[in-house]
Every structure is written in C-alpha cells, then in structure tokens.
C-alpha cells in the first residue's frame, strides 16, 4: 500500500468509536422479527479500513450513523460518506468499498445507494455518478488491482 511514502493527510482528526451494539432481550427472543435498522447498516460499514490509515472509516468520521438511512419494508438503503479533505483522491475508492461491503452483506432485495455528503468534496458529482453506475462498479471489480485494494479495506485488521 502506501508504505513509508508521505501520506496525504498524516495527522487527521480522530473520532471515538461507538461500542458494540448491546444485545437486548428482544434480540434473544426467537419469535420476534428484528427489522434491519440504521444502526445495523452502520455496523456493517463502520469497521471498513481507510485505504491510507490504519484507522476505520468511523474513527475518521467518514461515515456516521445519522448519515445512514434504511427502509426495510421498501428495501432501500442510502449511505452518505464524508471524505476527510475536499480533494481526497481516495473518495471513489472509499465509496466503492462501502458499496461492495453492502452488496455482499445485504439481502438481494435491497437497492443500495452510496454517495458523498453534499458539499464536502471537489468532484462530488463525478464520484456519485461512478458509484451509481452498476456497470462501472462491476467493471471496477473485474480489475484485479482495484479488487485487491477494496478487499484490503474490507479485511479484518491484523
């Protein structure tokens, strides 16, 4: 990856990690149906690694729980993410990682929408367009170098 070369943003702000979701009595009850909620989606993406730092997207505040919206009944998910700096060259890659993680982790019925928080990136529009285009996402994952970086972001940290 980046190794010992200079980082774009070497000393970023760090945000606190939210703890593991508490297991409630309702979760343990066999009969009840737990709907997929915002927190569950957030838990899927908060531990994704940043491509540059040994930090999670949550710690860099790239993803926040309030910017995750899910409608279980309508099968839609919408996630906004905020790059750490407006010229961050990794924005597309981060968006792609989030999208891939959600595609792998959610039932097929869901329509997944991932985009940049409005007004936080220089080329916001272009990135959003790329992420929304199914074929371009599929093509990106055919590229083994790109797939490698995405998989690294999605792997559990050693």
């Amino acid at each position, binding site marked *: 990856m980046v190794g*010992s070369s200079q980082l774009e943003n070497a000393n970023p702000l*760090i945000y606190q990690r939210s703890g593991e979701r508490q297991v409630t009595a309702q979760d343990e009850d066999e009969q009840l149906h737990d709907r997929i909620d915002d927190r569950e989606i957030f838990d899927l993406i908060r531990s994704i690694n940043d491509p540059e730092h*040994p930090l999670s997207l949550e710690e860099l505040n790239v993803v926040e729980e309030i910017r995750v919206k899910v409608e279980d009944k309508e099968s839609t998910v919408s996630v906004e993410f905020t790059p750490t700096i407006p010229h961050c060259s990794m924005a597309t890659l981060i968006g792609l990682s989030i999208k891939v*993680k959600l595609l792998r*982790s959610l039932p097929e019925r869901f329509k997944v929408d991932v985009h940049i928080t409005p007004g936080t990136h220089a080329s916001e529009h272009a990135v959003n367009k790329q992420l929304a285009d199914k074929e371009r996402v599929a093509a990106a994952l055919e590229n083994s170098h790109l797939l490698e970086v995405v*998989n690294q972001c999605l792997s559990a940290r*050693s």
Partner: protein
Amino acid sequence: MAEAQDSLWGLVEEFVSGQQDSKATEVAAGVKDGAFTVLQVVEALGSCLANPEPRTRGRGVQLLSQVLLQCYANLKEKEVEVLVVFYENRLKDHHVITPHVLQGLKALSMSVVFPPGLAVSVLKSIFQEVHVQSLMQLDRHTVYMIITNFMNNREQELKSLGADFTFGFIQVMDGEKDPRNLLVAFQIVQNIITKNYSLGPFVEELFEVTSCYFPIDFNPPPNDPHGITREDLILGLRAVLASTPRFAEFLLPLLIEKMDSDIQSAKVDALQTLTAACAVYEQKELKEFLSGLWSSIRREVFQTASDKVEAEGLAALHALSAGLSRSVLSPDSEDLLNTFLSSILQDCRHHLCEPDMKLVWPSAKLLQAAAGASSRACLKVTANVLPLLLEQYNQHVQSSHRRTILEMTLGFLKLQSKWLQEEDGNGLANFKDPLCSMVFSAVTDPSTPLQQVAVKALTVLGTQQGFLSSGDIDLIVDHLTRLILEETDSQSCQAVIDSSGSLARVHPAVFISRMVPQLCSRLQTVPMEGTDDRGSAIPQRTVWQRCLEALAAISTHHSIVQETVPILLDHVRQAQKGDTIAEDVVAVCKSLHQVAVLCQENAESLCYYHQKVVPCLLSITVLAAMQDRGNAADLHVLLNDNVLTAMASLIISSTTHLSPDLLSSSVSQIVNLFLDGDVSILKENSFPSKFLPFQIDGPAAPQSRLVALFMAFVCSLPRNVEIPHLSRLLQDLLSLSLAGCCAFAFTSAAKCFAGLINKCPAGEQLDNSLQSASHKIESGLEDESRRTQAVTLLTWVTKALILRYHPMDGHLTNKMIGLLSDRDLGPLAADMFCLLVSDSPDILNKACHADIRIMFRQRFFTENVPKLVQGFNAANEDNKPNYLKALSHVLNCLPKQVLVTELPSLISLLLEALSCPDEVVQLSTLTCLEPLLLDAAAILSVHIDTLISKLLCLTSSPSMAVRITALKCMLALTKLPLPMLLPYKQQVIRALAKPLDDKKRLVRKEAVEARCQWFLIGSPGS
C-alpha cells in the same frame, strides 16, 4: 578366544567386501560384550585400511567409526590417543573417506578420557585439511558436533588456541545454508562469545558470517520431519547478534536499515533484536546511533498499520531508555539519557496538545515507554509532561478532549507510582494541588467516560501512601459513595465499586466512617416494585443491589469485614419474618459470598467470617424449617431452592480455605446437629421441635432441604479433616437420596453422598458403602416411583468414582450407558452425561479438595466412547438420539488436542449427529466441531462436501442458536486450505445470501461475517 577372532574376521570381511551394513552392529555388540577388543578390530581391518582402493579403505574406516560410536565410553586413554593419531592422518587421505573419519572423530570427541592436548591438534587438522562447506549436510553437522563436544569438555585447551579457533570456525561455517546446521552453528558462536573465547581481530568477520542471515527468511517445507521453525532460527540468530556490545557498531546500522524495510516481519525482527541487544549495551555503544534509532522507531510507531509493529517499537524504545539509564557516568561525560529524552520530548510534546488528532496517542505511548524504563527517565519525562497536560486540561473544555488528556495523565501517574514510590521527592508533590483539582473536577463532570477515567486516576493517587492529605481521602470516598448511589451508567458504577475495593485496602478507617454508614442506611429502605419516585434517575432496586455489591467489594480489610458481615447477616435474618421475596435474599447471600471470596486471602478475616456466618445461617434456616408446615405452596422463603443454593455456595467458599484445626471442632458440631438434632452450635436455643433432617417422611419433610447446607460444608472440607460417624452418615444420606421427598432434597443428598465417597480413603468402609449404594440403585431402578432418584444417585456416584479412578467406575458407567436405550429414562440419562464429564460448580471440584486424577476425562473418553459408538449402531431409531446426545456431551468437555487425534474415527458419527432432528444434539455437535475445523484439514478434506451441505442446511434451522453456530462453523471453514474451499465458493456465497435476510439480527450478523469472508477467499488482497 581364537574362535572369537575368527568370527571377527568373518564379520569384517562381510562388512567390507560383502557390503552388509548390519555386521557393524554385530561387531559393536561384540566389543561391548568384551568378546573382542577395539585393538583386535583394528588388526582385523589392517589389510583393508591399507588397501590401494579408496572405497575399500573408506569401508574399513566406516566400520571402525561405527564401532567407536557405540563403544566410545569403554575406551581407555591410551586407545583414544592411538586412534586420534590414526584418524588425524586419515584426514589427509582421499575425500571419499573423510565423512567416515569425521564420524570416528565425533565418537572419540565424546570420550571422557580424551588425552589432554589432542583436541587442539584435531581441530587444527580439521581446519587445515577439510573444506567443510563442500561436504554433505550430515558431515558438516558432524564437524559442528565435534567442535561442540570439544567446547563442552576442553574449554581451556581450545582457549589456548586464541583467536585462531574463532578464525577457524568462521571458515568452517562461512556459507552454511542448511537450517539444521545453522541452529548448531549459532549455538557455537553464542558460546564462543559468552564463554569469552578470544575473538582477536575477527570481531567483524564473526559478525559478518552470522549477520548475513538476518533477517531470517525461512519457511519450513510442509511435513518437515525435522520440526525446525522459523522462530527457532530467529531466536538462535538473535542470541548471537545481541550477545556482545562488541557487535554494536556493526549491528545497529544493520537494524536501522532493516527497520526501513517494507516487509513487516523484517521490521518486527529488527525491533525485537534491538530490544534484546539493549540488554547488554550501554551509552558508549549506543551513542552514535541514537538519533537514527529514534527516528526509525518514531516513524514506525507514528505510521504503522500494525499493532504488532507498534508494540515492538515501544518495547525497543523502552529497552533503549533502560540501556541508557544503566550506565555509570564519569564526571565529564555527557548524560546521553538526558539528551535522548529531550529529543523524544521535543518530537512528541506538541502532539499532546492536539487531543483529537491521530498522533496524540502514539506520542503519549512513546513518552510512556521511554519513561517506564528507569526512575531517572520517569522523573525527567513526567516533570516535563505533567505541567503541560495540566495546562492543556484547563485549555480544552470539550469533555472528550479532557478525557484523552486525563487518560494520558493517568498513564504517567501509574509509571510514577511504579518507579518513585519509595523516594521522598517523587516529583509529584509539586503538582499535588493542580492534579487534585483536575481529577476532582473531572469526577463531577456529567460526561460518563470522563468520570470513569477520573475514578481510575483517583484510585492511583489514593493508593500512593502519604501522598494525599486525609481531607482529600475523605473527599475521594465521598465521591465514590455518591457515584455508587447516583451513577446511572451500570458499567461505570461497576468500575467505581472495583476502585473502592482497592482503595479500602489502604484506607479502611475512612471507608468505615464515611461509606459504610451511607450504604447501610440506603439498604434499610426495602425495595418494592413500582414504588420508585419519578424524581430519581435510577430505580430504587438497582441502588439497593449496588449497596450490597459495594459492601461486599470493600470488604478487603479485616476491620471492614467486621463491619460489613453483621450488616449483611442482619438482612438475611430479616427474611425470617417471611415477607421478603427470595430474589432479595439471594442477592444478600451473593454479597456475603463475595465477602467470603475476599476473606480467603486473610486467615484472620476468614476465621471470623466462618464463626459468625455459618452458625447464624444454620440457626435461621433450621428455625424456618421447623415453623414450616410442609405445604409446598407456601414454602418459607429461607427454604427456597435458590436461597439455599446461594447459602451453600457461600459456605463452600468460607470452608475450603480454612485451617484444618479450626474446622475439626465445627465438623463434629455440625454432624451432631444433622444426625442427632444436637442444637448446641446454634445461636438460639428455643426450638419448637426436634431437628431431624434425615427423617424421610412425616412433619420434618421441609427439614431435609437443609441437607444442601450440610453438603456444602462437609464436601468442601480438606481431605485430612476427619468426619465423625461417617458410616452412619453415609447410610442416612443414601436413604434420603432415594426417598420420595422433593427433588432438591434428594439431589442434595445424592451429591453429598458422592462428595463424601470421593474423598473416602480406600478400604472396607468405602467398599461397603458402595456395595449398598449399588444395591439400592438397582432396586430403585426397578421401582417405578423412585427411578428418577435412582438415576440421579447413580450419576453422582459414578462421577465421584470416575474422578478418583476407582475400579468400580467402569461398572457404573456401563449401567448408565445401558440406560440410554431405556424407553423412559433414556433422555434423562443422556442429559446426565453432561454432569459426568463437565466441571461441577459447587462440590467435587479442585477447590473443594476433591480427589481428582489428571486426565480423568481422557480416560473416560478412551474407555467409553467406543461403547457409546457401539451402542449407537445397535440401537433402534428411537434411541439413537440419546446416544448421540451422550456422545456430544462427552466430546464437548474434552480438550481440543485429544479430539483432533480421535477425529478420524468420530467424524462420520458427528456428521450423522448434524442430521439428527434433536436441536440439543445439533447444537452441541456444532459447538464441538467449530474449534476443530482449523486443526483437522486433512481429515475433513474427504468429508468437506457433506459437511458444507449439512452446515448450509442447518443455517435455516428453526432454532436461532443452531443457525448462529452453523454460520460460525461456516466462518471457521474459511481458514482451511484454499484448494479445498475454492470448488464450493460460488455455491456457498449463493446459499449464504438467504440467512442475510434472517428475521433475527444476531443470525444476520454471523451470516454477514461468514459470507464476506467467503468472498475474500482466493481473491486478491485478502
């Protein structure tokens, strides 16, 4: 004699010309028996040793060497001398012979009568005549062994060679590639250095010839028979490199270079080697390289993505700082520690002022690693950092920032208390007031995380004897009390209670005067459901429970125990009136139990506790049992199962650690109470009726429940305490355990019987009791109304005997296995197998001094699993699940290592168990399989197809726990070798899409983890 000679000639002939290798052993045996001497062997070899054909000469030397390898211990000094001269000459001979010559020299080098002076000459010849690195691996190994033997036995002679020996060895090992030889060679170099052989001008050469292997890059081939790991080599080489300060000037630049490497293992190795080397280095060696080392370490800690590298970097910095601290300074030399710490401070200080940036923690960790090395380092760093942190705390107002700052301060305070405790001017005194005001302001902050850190800091400050004024301690205790009573967050309240426990040890008087009365008065308000006033944030009940927990937790000092035990006992006594609910009494008993555990460290407290608590509990329960009318519907609260179980466990904890002298008097009193109704031990003496707990029916039925308390006491006694009237007791227990009373009473009696049997010394008494137990069980099993009792007793007695390897255990176990095919009792018996092999929480465990042999589970396993498997195969369809259940209980309790070796024979049965409709069987089989999946790749490869399809099938089981465990197994599978998994990747990914939409969140979570991991296998970047 002549015959022996002839046979020797024959053997030699067959070995040399007949090429029969086995003859060498026969010759060696002959020499050992004394049939012929070594000299005769040489004579017999005479002609072939002089043969012009090198191979024949080689064959001759080979025979002699093999004989010597077996018989070197019998050689006389003169013989050794002659042989050595012979062999030395042979070194000059044809190269085909050299390997055999070396073998012979190795044999001779092990002789204890090796003549003085010859070692040097042998080594010189080897160094001169043999080009070691052109030999085969085995022969090179022989050379290393010869050198090792001489180094062990002839150290002084070798040292007389001076640096020539070192130089000779450098030439021998230069270019060695085989890991087996390297391990030996590294050991030799380490000995050369640590045993002070002269290195002369060859320090750099010796370093070069070893350091060329650094960092070790070796991966043992699969199925490596030699079992040499990369780790072995790394440690071997590290011991060499870090063994002497004389390598410093060469090693340090090499390490700095390797820390820059892109390979993580190289970085880690370099940092670990640096840590090891710092143990022998001082200022003079480190001086030149300090700035280079610091900047490399700093870069690794600041930029690394790996926790491992960070931890090693910090350890290396700690070692560097320790190395610098060790040196004795001459008056005019520069204090390098000071300059080094200054540069660290300069690079890290400013990051501490940005508590929300990434580098704040790495900086703090670096400073703490450096400060933790010595008191001098600690003083210098804290003197610099603490004022800065105190100032920063006041400048930042956001509670998350303050928390980070306080947490860093806490780290430095801990170091301070470790290093500077005994010194008067511990540097903290100057900061006492600002520190106190910072911590006290934080502890009243509304933010819970900040409060939690503040409590930790208070504890560290409070435990430093004599640092805080008594007024401050009072204030701390007040804060803790307030938090216990008012804190809403249960986790941070727990932390407060824990802190109170450790502070109470140091300041017991303050806790008695300030905290105990407050907790006590809050306990008086008995909690009622639904009476919470709206104003308070936490339910009354929670506060009440917290008071109990806190009272228990602070009982860490004898004087406090004397306060808390009477308070808690009073609360148990209040239940006598009968209007308290069982849950509350259990809570008080749990608290008393906690006190008992804390008292175990202190004999005085424990003795007080035992004498106070046990008679009191017995009196009130006996009284309650007498008042009880035996009506099951309104059982007295003190006779409730849960209450008695809680009391039993506190009695166990207070008995197991007590000294035998104290116990022997209470044993006879308590036995008399239960056997004869002698109430002399009890506090009260006005009892309405007689206490007869073993009377099977009649008005005393509720009394038999108290056998649980009796069991707790007598079964936790040390084995050397004698129990009076043992045989009468055993008989009474036996009858009670098969009586028609309530389940709680007969189970307690069965357990008590088993607990006593387990400790009973072998002999007539034990045999008789077992005889009669066995008869009663037999007849009980016949009797329709007493079958459950009989199975319970059978299980407990079997367990007691299995634990102590009693010869009768097999008979009883067979009976239990037999019961599995019983139509009514089969399922019950299957469940009981869990009791047989798992650790029992109350009695019959190590803490209760039970007689437990090591590996009893393995023994049980090897003896009984074949029978279970056989029974399973023979059973009809209805009973099969019973066998599978019993089997999976047994397997679940076994250590993993044992299971892995047995897996081949069991795997098909386990797979069958997965298809068994019983959910308990499914679940326990899955739990048993999950940890095995990693270690059993080879065995599973044949069954992988079945395994995957069965697991996938179970992911849609109606039971949530089964679905979760099946998915966990699917995740565990991803660690298997790639080629086994790839054919199934697409199928599994498709199948796991379904549980992603499971109705339970906990199942979805496991499904996501498993599925994402399956996506990653065989994919780039994973």
